[in-house]
């Protein structure tokens, strides 16, 4: 999952790194195929090399020391709105067939069944990054036909809805513990792009709350290479995030 996320980062990309798993994914990418990637953290940090120790939060001292820039949230998130961020990572509690993500309210807003923590920077990253990559555990209650609340916009109602709302970019991939989904076709609905080793199409469809269609050319996700595994172990020495 982390390695698959790392592969979404191209060399030279300016990447908005979220909390938790994406921090590790950024490190893996940087140590393998993307040595010129730049990592942005919404607390106000820009880094080239990954932090020298495991991070529990993006504001931990190892992420500050040796940073390329320690500045304000606006100087970093402003780069999103300025159109300078190539890829952004977020997680979520619920995602729907058009890649809209909910991290706010399950059920009615006025009296929610579950109150989730909220957007943080996710709504901004989803709206303004050129490519959005979501990382989520693949469970039927999380992969739903329509999210109760759009915290982070994907393609909204599909088709041209996102551009009509004034937004470019949009979801490029959803990385789960079972597979990778990508938007496809004029409706921009999420399709099954590849299945991780040890998982299969029927299982994935069984854990998805909509009629998930396979992409033409659906294949198995390439297993982590030796270099990728080595990078993963180097970044997360203690296995905190695995």
């Amino acid at each position, binding site marked *: 999952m982390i390695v698959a996320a790392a592969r979404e980062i191209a060399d030279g990309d300016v990447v908005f790194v979220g*909390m938790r798993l994406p921090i590790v994914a950024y490190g893996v990418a940087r140590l393998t195929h993307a040595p010129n990637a730049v990592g942005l*953290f*919404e*607390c*106000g*940090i820009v880094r080239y090399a990954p932090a020298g120790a495991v991070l*529990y*939060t*993006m*504001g*931990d*001292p190892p*992420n*500050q*020391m040796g*940073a390329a820039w*320690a*500045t*304000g*949230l*606006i100087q970093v*998130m402003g780069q*999103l*709105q300025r159109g300078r961020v190539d890829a952004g990572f977020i997680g979520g509690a619920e995602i729907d067939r058009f890649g809209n993500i909910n991290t*706010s*309210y399950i059920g009615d*807003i006025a*009296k*929610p*069944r*579950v*109150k*989730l*923590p*909220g*957007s*943080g*920077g*996710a*709504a*901004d990253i*989803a*709206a*303004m990054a050129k490519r959005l990559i979501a990382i989520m555990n693949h469970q039927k209650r999380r992969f739903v036909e329509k999210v109760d*609340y*759009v*915290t*982070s*916009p994907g393609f*909204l109602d599909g088709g041209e809805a*996102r551009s009509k*709302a*004034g*937004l470019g970019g949009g979801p490029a991939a959803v990385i789960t513990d079972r597979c990778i989904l990508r938007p496809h076709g004029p409706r921009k609905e999420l399709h099954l792009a590849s299945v991780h080793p040890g998982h299969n199409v029927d299982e994935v469809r069984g854990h998805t709350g909509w009629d998930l269609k396979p992409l033409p050319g659906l294949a198995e996700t390439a297993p982590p290479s030796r270099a990728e595994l080595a990078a993963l172990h180097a970044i997360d020495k203690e296995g905190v995030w695995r």
Partner: protein
Amino acid sequence: MKDKLLPLDRAISENLGPGDAVVLGACLEPDIPFAATYEIIRQGIGGLNVIAPISDASTDMLIGAGCVAEVTGAWVGNVSGGLGHNYRRALEDGEPGPVIVHDHSNFSLAMALLAGAHGMPYVPLRSILGSDIARSNPAFRRAENPFSEAREPVVLVPPLQPDLAVLPVQRADRHGNAHHWGSAGLIQESALAAEKVILLADEIVDAEVIASDPSRVLIPGYLVAAVCHLPGGAHPSPMTGRWRRDNQFFEDYHRVSRTRDGFLDWLREWVLEVPDHAAYQKKLSQRLDDLRITGTAPAAITSYAVA
């Protein structure tokens, strides 16, 4: 210049009242003024509008303690554990009382405080277009960009000028002149937007130390109401160059606060039965010492010489 050094209890009681809007946690994960969070709970100040983009478990604690009527923020939970149990109970069950949430993204809250800081009437924003945040928070208005040919939609964010901001800094002098370094989140916008500022200084230094590096100044003392000397006052959150994060503390809090009773036990042990920050430090004892950063990785020398 006026000496603004005060004990925390007086700084809070003299500068925060029931119903006030207060920034507690402007830097996201680091530099959260937990010592002030605890003191506000001890003083039982209620009806607060707590403003913070992300402030780890601080807002959740205040909600559980019944101090909060409104939350103006982008994320409320526990960075180590995820969900905020008190936040859930308040929103799902009204326990211990109802809380009104003013939904924001980090960037929309940033723009609101930026506007407050510099007296901007409002700020137009693209960043929450398409998000239900622009709908569920009625403070926002939709408009069209008059400079665009294509009737481009924008969201208008009104300014926030909180009554108070409580801001941890690495060092300050007795007059409120302060240095802050490391990621800054919204600390400067909060300092300038708020009507009053209380600094929690990890170290009190001579005025000459702050004046030796004016570019490192967070905010000059004439804009500060009170300075409290509270080493480790951001514990369990980290502070660049000074304190590591107490991850276990957050995990423990997340676990025990899963039930209301568990939270109340935690609150008694860590807040209500701890009279002040000195007692809190003593209770943490070796654990706090272990989090203290004692090494030094000095910044390159910078000079302001004139000749």
